[in-house]
């Protein structure tokens, strides 16, 4: 089994770009990744593309071929839909394809266009990631679902809204050094606590914004990188995916996300690492409480200990385990179907030293990415390691 190396990465600036087409967004990210990789156009063998709500936002199904054209490539392209984990599963399939020997060079990425819809329509669109019969019809929105989990967490383990506010403050601070982030605005704990309630106990500043954007990654086999003398210091050493019941009501514990634990256990075993080996993490903080659930599911914190990590300064830029140095979904933005590979882009740059926040982790060797779909009915975890 060959190792998989990351040869190039690309992003659009995340933000509100309601006038830009999905194909234009993906083109920008894909061309940036291709330029970063410096791989011959003819060598691309397949495209793995994530998108969640293209039918609703652009009335565009069958997006694979559209995006292959946009990327300027002539190869098969397949779309993966797994809610907010769409690009994570696309990336995982790209890794598996290279490992199997079926291809030496592939492009993985994702795109989401959201702001051309109004807030109400976006809320409705995001809700389709929940169980239609048993959750959506009972008024469960995407923030509402995480609010149900947050209240269950506070009841089971403790913690409060102020702990969550510290996560928002941390991620906004981290985004200040990320040119691609949607927000470049520091906030205070008071700002977060005083922001309007979306679904109690979650307020506006507990929630990620509505984001348009795209991301892309060029993956190559170790052999290919060597033969072509590519500068590709980051290797994908672990990949794992986990699943859970679609509806919260069918899970035994409402404040745990075992799908992410399964994904992490598989990815760690694949990479031959333990949670202690992780130097830096990018996790799926669609809501502040989601960062807590992620840290605990990844084995980086015990259940009940993750909620205070940001307030204690452990996961901040200067902490022992910086989490979401990109700004996270909270401040970098969350173009749903692009987020999984956007995390890979951010982690690659953090590890190879060309990220605005690389100076916070100069000796980091092992990075972990955690991408979740819905209320973590799907989770994808990857381990990235850099040659040092």
């Amino acid at each position, binding site marked *: 089994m060959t190792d998989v190396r990351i040869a190039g990465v690309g992003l659009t600036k995340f933000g509100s770009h309601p006038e830009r087409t999905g194909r234009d967004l993906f083109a920008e990210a894909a061309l940036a990744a291709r330029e970063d990789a410096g791989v011959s156009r003819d060598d691309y063998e397949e495209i793995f593309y994530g998108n969640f709500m293209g039918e609703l936002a652009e009335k565009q199904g069958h997006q694979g071929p559209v995006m292959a054209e946009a990327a300027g490539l002539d190869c098969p392209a397949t779309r993966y839909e797994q809610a907010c984990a769409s690009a994570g599963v696309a990336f995982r399939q790209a890794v598996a394809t290279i490992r199997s020997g079926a291809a030496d060079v592939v492009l993985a990425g994702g795109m989401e266009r959201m702001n051309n819809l109004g807030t109400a329509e976006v809320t409705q669109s995001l809700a389709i990631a929940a169980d239609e019969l048993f959750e959506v019809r*009972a008024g469960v929105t995407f923030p509402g679902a995480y609010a*149900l989990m947050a209240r269950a967490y506070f009841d089971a383990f403790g913690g409060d809204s102020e702990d969550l506010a510290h996560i928002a403050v941390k991620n906004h601070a981290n985004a200040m050094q990320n040119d691609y982030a949607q927000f470049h605005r520091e906030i205070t704990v008071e700002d977060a606590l005083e922001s309007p*309630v*979306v679904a109690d106990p979650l307020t506006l500043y507990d929630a990620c914004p509505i984001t348009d954007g795209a991301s892309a990654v060029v993956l190559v086999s170790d052999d290919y990188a060597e033969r072509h003398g590519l500068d590709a210091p980051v290797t994908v050493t672990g990949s794992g995916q986990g699943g859970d019941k679609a509806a919260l009501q069918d899970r035994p514990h*409402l404040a745990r996300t075992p799908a992410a634990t399964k994904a992490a256990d598989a990815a760690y075993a694949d990479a031959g690492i333990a949670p202690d080996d992780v130097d830096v993490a990018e996790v799926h903080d669609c809501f502040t409480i989601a960062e807590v659930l992620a840290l605990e599911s990844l084995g980086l914190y015990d259940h009940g200990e993750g909620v205070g990590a940001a307030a204690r300064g452990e996961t901040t830029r200067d902490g022992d385990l910086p989490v979401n140095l990109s700004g996270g979904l909270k401040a970098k933005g969350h173009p749903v179907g692009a987020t999984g590979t956007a995390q890979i882009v951010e982690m690659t740059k953090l590890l190879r030293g060309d990220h605005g926040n690389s100076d916070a982790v100069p000796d980091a060797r092992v990075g972990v990415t955690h991408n979740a779909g819905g209320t973590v009915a799907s989770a994808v975890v990857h381990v990235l390691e850099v040659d040092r």
Partner: protein
Amino acid sequence: MTDTGYDEWLAAIADGEGYYLACPDGHGSLPPRRSCPHCGAAELTAKPLPETGEILTFTEVHVPAPNFADEAPYMTAIASFGPVKLTGVVRDLPADEVDLGTTVSVGVGENATTDEQLLVFRPASE
């Protein structure tokens, strides 16, 4: 739209004859099902839902999706009814009287926005 299995289940709850599906190992699930989501057993038997349930978690939603535009703010909760948990909208109970552990009964109401039937939790009569 007709959703066979689900529609009959909701109608039964409206008639006060709510049920869940039990597998031989005692796992509970809700229709439509052809196998137990917890263990895969194919033999499912309808059993009566407990009369009352207990709220496990809840949220007051202030930013609704369009299908609840005329309801906001509204309270959605997950409540345990024996071996199954149900998700519904809390009605006839002031927001400050909803808490973890609050005992509720389950019935059916109408969504003011869409006129669709929905699962509703109401205060359990003593």
